[in-house]
């Protein structure tokens, strides 16, 4: 068990099929359950996964249903920046938005470029999550996610996954 406090947060993760949106969803689910929180999340499968738009929702707290109503999400993690506009209606006014983008702007990081430098664009999602975890408003701290990642990563991918998460975190705190 981590020392983290109980939380009530609703997170949207968006991207395109194949960009690791499902893995991030699972990672956040497990991060929540490790601190003893209730969690319910929703994923996109099937036809939508062939490179099409994909969005997951993660609701941590006392929720019974998996979808986030419009205007109630606290955080958006956009593995693909082109998907941001299609999810903005879900966000609160003061929501935190973390984006993988080559354009320099608030809470943006070119996660894909960093992932490629690390050896694989497949870990773009984790670079972005590491980056987000450095923000004071993010519900899980880097160390906590790191622990969860060690638990759920396939052993073959573990080393690269951890490097990606750490690199994203370091760039945010540098």
């Amino acid at each position: 068990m981590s020392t983290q406090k109980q939380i009530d947060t609703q997170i949207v993760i968006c991207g395109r099929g194949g960009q690791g949106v499902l893995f991030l969803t699972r990672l956040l689910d497990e991060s929540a359950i490790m601190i003893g929180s209730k969690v319910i999340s929703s994923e996109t499968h099937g036809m939508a996964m062939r490179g099409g738009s994909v969005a997951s929702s993660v609701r941590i707290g006392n929720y019974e249903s998996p979808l986030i109503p419009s205007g109630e999400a606290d955080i958006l993690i956009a593995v693909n920046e082109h998907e941001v506009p299609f999810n903005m209606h879900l966000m609160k006014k003061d929501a935190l938005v973390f984006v993988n983008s080559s354009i320099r702007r608030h809470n943006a990081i070119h996660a894909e470029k960093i992932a490629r430098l690390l050896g694989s664009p497949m870990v773009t999602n984790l670079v972005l999550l590491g980056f987000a975890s450095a923000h004071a408003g993010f519900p899980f701290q880097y160390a906590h996610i790191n622990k969860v990642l060690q638990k759920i990563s396939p052993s073959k991918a573990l080393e690269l996954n951890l490097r990606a998460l750490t690199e994203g975190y370091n760039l945010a705190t540098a």
Partner: protein
Amino acid sequence: MLQKIKKEAILMGNEAIALGIIENGCNMASSYPGTPASEILSSIAHYRDAYGLKMHVEWSVNEKAAFEVALANSYSGCRSAVSMKQVGLNVALDSLMSSAYTGVVGGFLLVSADDPGPHSSQTEQDSRFIAMLAKIPVLDPCSPREAHDFIATAYELSEKYEIPVLLRPTTRVCHARQNVASGKLLKNKRKAMFSKDPARWAATPKFRLTLHKDLNKKLSLIASEKKLQPFFYKSGTSNQNNCIIASGVAYSYVLDFLTEHHLLDKVALCKVPMPYPLPDSFLKSITTKFHKILVIEETYPVIELQIHDRRNVTGRLSGHVPNAGEITPDIIYPVVNKFLNIHGKPLKQAKAGGQRPSLCAGCPHRATYFSIKKALPKAIYAGDIGCYTLGINLGAVDTCLCMGASINQAAGFFHSFKSTGSEAKPIVASIGDSTFIHSGITALINAVYNGARFILVILDNSTTAMTGNQPTAATGVRADGTSSSGLQLDKLLEGCGVTYIKTIDSYDVQGITSTLKDADTYTRSQNGGIAVIISKHPCLIGSKHKKTITVTVGENCTGCRYCITNFECPALVHENKKVFINPVLCSGCGVCVHVCPVHAIKVQ
């Protein structure tokens, strides 16, 4: 890989269902893959090994086969589970209708996963109506946790009344994740035993009438089963004026809304765990207790229709809840607000658009469809169900009805044009290997028997790709990884009476194009018939594919976008009036080299 669950774990709805099946002494599970139900069977296979259980687990070739295999196990006194997507139940409907009459001995759990939306299906039909049609009970879980917990109940109910029981999760239950507490592991100690009873297991029409009467008796008893009665979220709320009746995931949305807006004291919330059969007493009395009732359910008005006096009842039937599409919080909240005369703040609208799905870079189907379009541009393209339905993006799919329909429809087009003396067009049917085995074989036999002429392209990628790469009967591997003698497609085709059979690698654009033209000639020749081309190349997902060539775009690219429009490969990117190849996405199939009209795309 799923592991043994000690106390609690976060599980996808389908995993939770699989866990419930494992825990309740089931010794046989069968399925045919289909979104959103696919992960149920693969999870059962994983759990079986993690728990060290003896179980027969199979990917059947279609839902009817899956249903009947599992049914015989229940005839033998053992517990079975058969899972499928909702349109799969249409394929198994014949078996279901009859099995309701014969009933079962060992518990028979049927899981039919509905897809309101629809997200990944050709209809958003409601399996609860099918339960009603077949006269079997149906449980409607509102979450992964409840889906798991319902399985013990379903098996008890099935054995108490010797009847198949339907569990009807929807996409938002199947593909939601939630903490789920594990249940007690019931060790299966039963031995299969078949007691002969021809009046039941082989009933002739005369005995069928008796069975039908028995079934009616069972249903009226099931309707009053204490554990499965509609109930109020808060007891003592029946002094309210208004009531919302809900089932499935819609109940969870309503509960979250009422909780968040502190409305649970303002309206009675009634949950229906078993939408069919409902007790008459409930259906009659509920309308006398409240001034106004709102029914919220997915996807068709099953509960609403059963209420006797609907004068003060609103829902999907009355049009107060939209009568098509998924129920989401954004759909429900304004409906509930209006029902309670609350002025809610307007919801932000979602922006329309987003990226449409397309075939993966390097997908062998893309190459095949490009060749079909090139060789026979004026043909009628009868399509089928699978990843390759996305061939529609390439303009090479004109119809998509249901599993196996491409072949029957191609035959139908042929006879339609011929019998009316209309100008004959080339007809090309395309179907994947798994779909062909599912329901294309009988279609082909019919087409040959009745003298149809067309080209059939079997897109053989040696897997069931769309639903997560499950093996097929031709792969030579079973659900649990053991090997089986693989079905040989060419021999099967010969047996169906086809004499024109050619197998070509899907990436061989020139080979397929010339064969298609040759096949077209054959279908028109005096002694011609149906020409079958097996376009064979393994799906890149899940196969050990290595990029062996690098493709580049030369300076002579005119930026005409021909490749973007007609080939639609995600690795081809149009930027600053030129085309580039995204090296990350490119699989190195080299097919696009044949696509560029000015030969600007080259192998490096």
